[in-house]
């Protein structure tokens, strides 16, 4: 009898520990996503300024600039899901990347102090966003592992925890963006 009680006690204790670690991992993900959100917002704040200061120079990239503004507006909408935010972020990064590349063709722009300052800020924010994405991906991987691995998967199933999406560090982000393709979309 007492042996049974001890075994039961141990099982309950392990279940509690697993439950708590899952909650901890889930909160970690949410917490870091808040951080990702904060740096993304920093970038959103910068975009109108950047678009305003480069649009007078960049006649040929009007559509890209419009696209950036539009993506920003979409991403700023309240109540969009994390997955949607992640998808919009990827598109926005690509569009901004193409602007940076296109800027090379405008010597006037590169001589403009204000624009250069904005670009430096944008660079720094991009670096922060990249760090936030990596931290988020790590936390999500930890959570996803726990959700799928035995024995935590049993408890996770009962808690109805869902796998989360990771930020894809897309190939387009690393390459020089094909500006033409962007225009024709």
């Amino acid at each position: 009898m007492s042996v049974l009680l001890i075994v039961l006690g141990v099982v309950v204790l392990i279940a509690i520990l697993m439950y708590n670690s899952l909650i901890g991992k889930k909160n970690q993900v949410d917490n870091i996503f808040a951080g990702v959100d904060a740096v993304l917002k920093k970038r959103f704040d910068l975009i109108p300024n950047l678009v305003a200061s480069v649009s007078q120079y960049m006649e040929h990239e009007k559509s890209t600039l419009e696209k950036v503004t539009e993506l920003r507006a979409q991403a700023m909408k309240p109540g969009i899901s994390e997955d949607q935010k992640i998808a919009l972020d990827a598109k926005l990064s690509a569009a901004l990347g193409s602007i940076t590349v296109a800027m090379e063709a405008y010597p006037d722009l590169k001589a403009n102090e204000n624009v250069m300052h904005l670009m430096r800020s944008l660079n720094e924010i991009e670096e922060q966003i990249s760090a936030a994405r990596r931290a988020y991906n790590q936390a999500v991987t930890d959570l996803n592992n726990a959700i799928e691995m035995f024995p935590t998967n049993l408890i996770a199933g009962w808690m109805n925890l869902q796998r989360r999406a990771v930020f894809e560090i897309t190939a387009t982000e690393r390459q020089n963006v094909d500006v033409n393709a962007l225009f024709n979309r």
Partner: protein
Amino acid sequence: MKSTSELTDFYYKELYPSLNELEETRKRIVSQLKWYGGMGLVVFSIAALWMGKNFGLLHPLMIAVVIGFIVIASITYRFTTGGYTKDFKARVISPLIGAIDPHLLYNPDFMITQYLFERSDLFKHSIDRYSGNDYVKGSIDGVPLEFSDIHAEYQTRDSKGRTQWHTLFRGLFLVAEFNKHFKAKTVILPDQAEKNFGSLIGGWLQSINFSRDDLIRLDDPEFEKHFVVYGSDQIETHYILSHSMMKRILDFQRRVSHPLFISFVHNHIHIGIGTGKDLFEPAVFTSLLDYKQAMEYVNTLQNTIGLIEELKLNEKLWSKE
């Protein structure tokens, strides 16, 4: 900054007159030490014989005599080599540092302050004895830095009430301004647990280290194998430890083969290289003109100061100007 071969040239060409004079002194000291040693040995043997006859060899007084001899020997050693050490630092190390960069200041008796050492948060134990020497301060490529030899120890008492000294850290300690802004704290330590217990149990042991901030897992498996990282902010730690930074730290670790302790606190990088010995001390029993000896001085300096370039701390980031 000058290359290693340029510095080795400098060592042999520019410093040659000084080295020659110092080498003479060194030879004199060695013969002096030999003479003292021989004399000490004779005196000790006579004392030991006499004591052995009268009290027996394992008498407590015998132990006192042995300790007494060791103390006298070390005092004699220090006394004999003291002036030579001072001369060596003034005439060899100091110009060598000047040759690397004229903006670097050198003080053989000063050290990194205990405040900075403790600020790094690399060692959690309280420090009971703190010493160091060979302090260098200045800037390389516009990056302010300082470093010195450090020996930090703590004290314990055993059951019999005897005090024992333990070394917490001995080696080179460097503090430099970091090129990114950050508010949180990130500490990188050599990975003992994972090496000894494997990644599963070791990882678990690391995560329950209560004296540290959160364990942070990074997306570089090789880096994870060598180091354990604690930080107060996941995102900032990833911001500081970019992929390229992790690679640079790993490369450095492969080269130095001593335990590496790195922390990012207060917009500064703190690096401890646990060499376990006092650097920049003159050789007494090997020739100063020995190539290996010369390379050791040049390499230690070069590696330490070169860290700024190696970790690319001189690449000013965007808004930090």
